[in-house]
């Protein structure tokens, strides 16, 4: 049976994928987590795990050495330089420590397309997007060297039973506080069922290696997402539709653009981003100082703003992304009908299984 490893199995997306794929009779799941406090939920749900650091080559071999498909859902944390180095090590070890015949699936993000806000002529990338883009380049470089088939999936906003986006959407429906923009934009969302479907499709060899945008098939608008979530939680859906902003004359729009450009220069955002980019290449000591400076400044701002209110999120008006969509063989709606992850609230008969045994030395690719 095909052995599928999920790295970052206890993450927000990884955990729901484990619950979905764990029910499939086509594959044997290997959930990989760094530590036992992190894997508690999966083990409680009866998903046996392997524990260790894929960033460490010795660990990577025992974690991944016997797997046929490796899904990289890991999210490194730390300073920009730590994130960059850890992601590099993880990607290298995935290719170096997996079977020669292994297939690699790497999760990337829509953030690589840059600033999602509308009316931005230049879509600047933040440091997270640049780090993910750098990871994509590493995957392609490792693929060339190793000749292992690799799929880079740029995930949209991930929705699903256990995803924060879906939870907050349902909360807003329950509270009757949904406000949708007059223009119903494409949502750039992908349900976990579609992600699991793509993994199975790749496992069956039904897609060519490459870089894909993985979103719902066909694309869903935000209204469709809200309507689906309302239907799922059996709530009436009565959104308030915001008034459409009036069209601006070219002159006003031009002046606004110049003003915006001036403001952005004054607030030094490009400088901040440039510094973040540069810091990924300087010694960790300077990174730590920069993070300390940032933390102290944030604290100062927040202390000074003890009575200020938060601003509402703006993602409902973000622009549509994607050009090379993953060739899904099923529409998202039918996958959702087949693959709903149950809300995990009960102790199961299989709770707290023994850890999975390490990959045997005979499978070593080194």
């Amino acid at each position, binding site marked *: 049976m095909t052995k599928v490893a999920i790295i970052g199995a*206890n*993450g*927000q997306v990884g*955990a729901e994928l484990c619950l979905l794929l764990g029910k499939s009779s086509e594959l044997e799941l290997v959930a990989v*987590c*760094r*530590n*036992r*406090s*992190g*894997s*508690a*939920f999966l*083990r*409680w749900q009866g998903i046996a795990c392997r524990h260790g*650091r894929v*960033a460490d080559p010795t660990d990577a071999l025992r974690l991944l050495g016997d797997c046929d498909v490796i899904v990289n859902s890991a999210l490194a*944390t730390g300073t920009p330089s730590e994130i960059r180095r850890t992601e590099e090590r993880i990607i290298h070890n995935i290719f170096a420590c997996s079977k020669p015949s292994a297939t690699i699936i790497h999760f990337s993000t829509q953030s690589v397309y840059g600033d999602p806000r509308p009316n931005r002529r230049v879509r600047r990338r933040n440091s997270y997007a640049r780090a993910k883009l750098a990871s994509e380049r590493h995957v392609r470089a490792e693929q060339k060297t190793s000749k292992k088939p690799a799929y880079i999936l740029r995930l949209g906003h991930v929705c699903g039973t*256990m995803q924060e986006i879906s*939870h907050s959407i349902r909360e807003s429906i*329950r*509270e*009757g*506080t949904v406000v949708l923009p007059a223009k119903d934009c494409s949502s750039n969302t992908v349900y976990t069922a579609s992600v699991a479907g793509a993994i199975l499709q790749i496992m069956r060899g039904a897609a060519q290696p490459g870089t894909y945008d993985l979103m719902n098939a066909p694309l869903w608008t935000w209204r469709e997402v809200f309507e689906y979530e309302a239907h799922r939680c059996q709530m009436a859906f009565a959104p308030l539709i915001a008034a459409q902003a009036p069209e601006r004359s070219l002159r006003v729009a031009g002046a606004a653009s110049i003003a915006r450009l001036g403001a952005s220069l004054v607030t030094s955002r490009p400088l901040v981003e440039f510094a973040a980019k540069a810091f990924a290449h300087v010694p*960790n*000591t300077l990174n*730590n*100082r920069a*993070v*300390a400076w940032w*933390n*102290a400044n*944030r*604290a*100062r701002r*927040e*202390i000074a703003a*003890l009575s200020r209110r*938060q601003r509402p999120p703006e993602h409902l008006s973000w622009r549509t992304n994607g050009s090379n969509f993953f060739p899904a063989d099923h529409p998202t709606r039918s996958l959702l009908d087949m693959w709903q992850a149950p809300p*995990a*609230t009960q*102790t199961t008969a299989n709770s*707290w299984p023994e850890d999975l045994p390490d990959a045997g030395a005979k499978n070593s690719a080194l």
Partner: protein
Amino acid sequence: MRTKTSLSIGIVGAGAITRKSHLPVLMNTPDVKIAWIYDQRPETADVLANAYGVRSVHSTDLEQLPACDVSLVAIPVEARGEYLRIFAARGAAVLCEKPFSMGASEHSSWVAKFAPCMLGAGYMRRFFRSALLMRRIVREGMFGPLHGIDVSEGNRSKGSGADSSFLDDPVLGASRGVLADLGSHSIDLALFVCGADAFEAHSSTRIMDGTVDRKVTAKIQLYGTAQEPGRPTELNYCVSWLDRQDNMIKLRFPHTTVWSGLGPAAEVYVGDPEHPRDAVSLSSEAIGATTYNQAFFLEWKHFLEGIRAGQESLISARSALLTTSLVEALLSADLRPP
């Protein structure tokens, strides 16, 4: 009583809570000087000290730690005893991260070694605006006597964001569990809001991962001044690292319910929690925190003002004794399931 305006702070523990919360706030707190940072792992102390431009100290003999007016002790609970002994002997004040202690007798013995103003417990949620507002509602009896409290907190574990965490040591059991680590905050919040001075734990269920509790559910009766005579307040409590909870505190009064989320920016509502769109949002002019940095700032501000004035602060360790007692009771194995 201390008359010094500027106080020097010595920090024991260079972990995440010091890096992300205490140091950034202390760097922005007036009349405070960070004297030194110490950690058992010298390189960790060096990295943090260097990042913030303060001094790190290395010593295998804890008695040799430099002098300071106040120490922040932000290390795992079972490792604090020696530091508390040394600082008590020196007459220095100590602010301990939560949980303050794993047992009431140990907690009491440390409280006895310090003046009330000189020992604090880091239950900074007491400074959330919502907590201060709900406490006032209960104390002033705005909606009548408090009949019950429902508190539920937690979500499924998503990892520590680190290769290893102090929570990963199963040998240490309960002090690594959800009740001591996360639950002590919401237990303290419930006791703080209702002003209870005694409790009776009726039932408790724990889901154990080996020796470590991952979910705890309990029913407790609280006694104190804000309740009707002869009628205790019923506390329904749940904390979990296994599944999503409401993450709310609900106060049940005879004719209405007052509730709030558990985050710093949470609003306080009055009405029926089942029909939130019909609820009334309460606001208060009372100063309180709406971010974590603000809560840590107010925690330090009150604690340091208490030291300067020789007066017990809102986060004195003495005021947190009931929290430790209740956590200890819920962790004891002889309670029946609810």
